[in-house]
């Protein structure tokens, strides 16, 4: 009897030790991955705060070398960045408002079991997720509608994402009980009133989630603008960034100041680092504050469609 219990406690100790080792292993891997994610980010931020000459000589590792704000000062003199920022803010704000409105308009009827057409509309929506006309036919539609080279080409083709409609619908279905629908109907409340008085106030959390999804999408997207816009005045930030970062093309013709053109020539690398920081900073700062909403969005979305 005694021996047995001794055996067991020894076993437990051994197991405890191996579990502890495993725990250490897990913590180690987590730290390793965090460092892997952080290293490049730190390098970029440090390079952006370093002396441009040090950057082009390849002397910047993980901490700024000869701390300087020169590249930021130069970037802010570069008119394209301002223009791009302004346009992107416009597309993000107006686009997100339009997206959220239309998404709610679509998700509400689909979430009401009293609505007889919901199965059909659901199918119409789901089909668009698995089959699409593709690039050329979509381009032709935008062209036929005479939207090319207008802000509408950026705002309208992605007006509503089926995925966001589905998570909104799921949220309403699971969080606003069917009994409420019934009670409202018995009391003579029309769908429009029900939407305004119950659905809108009760779905604030999901509205926040999809608004963030759409806003991030607008902030980061370049391809629609690339396809549909020619007019430089309408370019979003990402399109200017593509020229600068990917094609290494600073538009020196529009930099009127010859001195500035010279600076751009010499400090291209350092400028790129600070542009990366400037373009990404807003999202990076906001994200930790709203992290839990994003995570909630994933949860809602993971409920089967």
């Amino acid at each position, binding site marked *: 009897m005694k021996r047995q219990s001794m055996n067991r406690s020894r076993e437990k100790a051994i*197991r405890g030790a*191996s*579990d502890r080792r495993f*725990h250490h*292993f897990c*913590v180690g891997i*987590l730290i390793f*991955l*965090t460092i892997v*994610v952080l290293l*490049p980010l730190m390098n970029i931020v440090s*390079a952006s705060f370093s002396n441009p000459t040090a950057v*082009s000589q*390849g*002397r910047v590792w993980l901490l700024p070398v000869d701390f300087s704000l020169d590249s930021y000062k130069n970037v802010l003199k570069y008119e394209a960045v301002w223009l791009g920022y302004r346009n992107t803010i416009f597309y993000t704000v107006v686009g997100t408002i339009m997206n959220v409105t239309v998404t709610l*308009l*679509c998700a509400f*009827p689909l979430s009401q079991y009293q*609505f*007889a*057409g919901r199965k059909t509309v659901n199918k*119409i929506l789901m089909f*668009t997720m*698995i*089959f*699409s*006309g*593709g*690039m*050329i036919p979509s381009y*032709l*539609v935008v062209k036929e*509608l005479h939207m090319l080279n207008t802000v509408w080409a950026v705002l*309208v083709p992605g*007006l509503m994402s089926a995925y966001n409609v589905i998570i909104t619908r799921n949220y309403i279905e699971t969080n606003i009980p069917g009994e409420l629908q019934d009670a409202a109907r018995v009391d003579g409340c029309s*769908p*429009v009133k029900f*939407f305004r008085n119950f659905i809108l106030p009760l779905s604030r959390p999901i509205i926040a989630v999809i608004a963030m999804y759409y806003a*991030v999408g607008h*902030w*980061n*997207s370049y*391809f629609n603008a690339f396809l549909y816009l020619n007019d430089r005045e309408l370019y979003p930030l*990402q399109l200017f*960034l*593509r020229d*600068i*970062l*990917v094609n290494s093309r600073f538009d020196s013709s529009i930099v009127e100041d010859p001195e500035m053109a010279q600076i751009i020539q010499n400090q291209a*690398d350092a400028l790129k680092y600070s*542009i*990366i920081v400037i373009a*990404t900073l807003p999202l990076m700062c906001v*994200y930790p504050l709203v*992290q839990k909403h994003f*995570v909630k969005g994933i*949860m809602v979305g*993971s409920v*089967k*469609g």
Partner: protein
Amino acid sequence: MRKRMKLALKRDWQYWLFLVIPLAYLLIFAYYPLLGLQIAFRNFTAKGGIWNSTWVGLKHFINFFESYQFTRVIGNTLILSLYSLVVNTVIPIGFALLFNCVERPRFKKVVQTIVTLPHFISVVVLVGIIMQIFNSRTGLYGIILEAITGSYPSDIFAKAGNFRHIYVWSGAWQHFGWSAIIYIAALSGVDLNLHEAARIDGASRLQRVRYVDFPHIKSTIILLLIMDMGRIMSVGFEKVFLLQNDLNRSASELISTYVYQVGLAQSNYSYATAIGLFNSVINLILILAANKLSQRVSDTSLW
């Protein structure tokens, strides 16, 4: 029947009112382009448009099947997307399982916030970052290798063979934390009694990961895999397009970039639409097949 429909319409008209704009949008931007697909069977001219250009039957498809690009772009697309699928499934799942074993909430929160951050970097900026970091002279990569080997490495963007690794691993770097969230959430729903029971039976933590945690997230994994199947042929066009250069084209020309190249850059709309249609159909078949398969093996289904 008619009467019933009339009655339903009378009762539901307000719901339909809500749907006017969404349905109009779907009709114009999702369904109308499907009609535009007919130009794959015509010789599109600006004058004839979608409806009146001459019919040419399967000519564009046959041209595509017979062109030397056919095997190349399909091969590139399949290899890149399968490579990416494997890496981007295994790493987030592994991360989530290990993450779930750690019992320090504050530490975990910090880790999770940091590893999800890169998800919000735009494709353009990400490609910019890749180009800066892997610059063989001024980038972190060049500096480190120079410090170790004493000489600057060669330009990694100049070799086509590197393209896939750059694409896939930068994607893993950017998205693994984000992709793991869903698994981490699923893992938090594991019944603690199961863990307790397994522990009493003498299972170590690692064994419990294998026999308790993993089975719990299996249906989530399968569901996400099916959804990814549907995207196999449309792998990350926007990023590939930015990473593409003349030196890596032999590995980076995908179906989708080829459609862009032929269609919009060279204005050969019909040929490009034919390729796009071929691609969409394969996609559809893949997603239906994956769904069927998963219904059979695990009762998990998309619809």
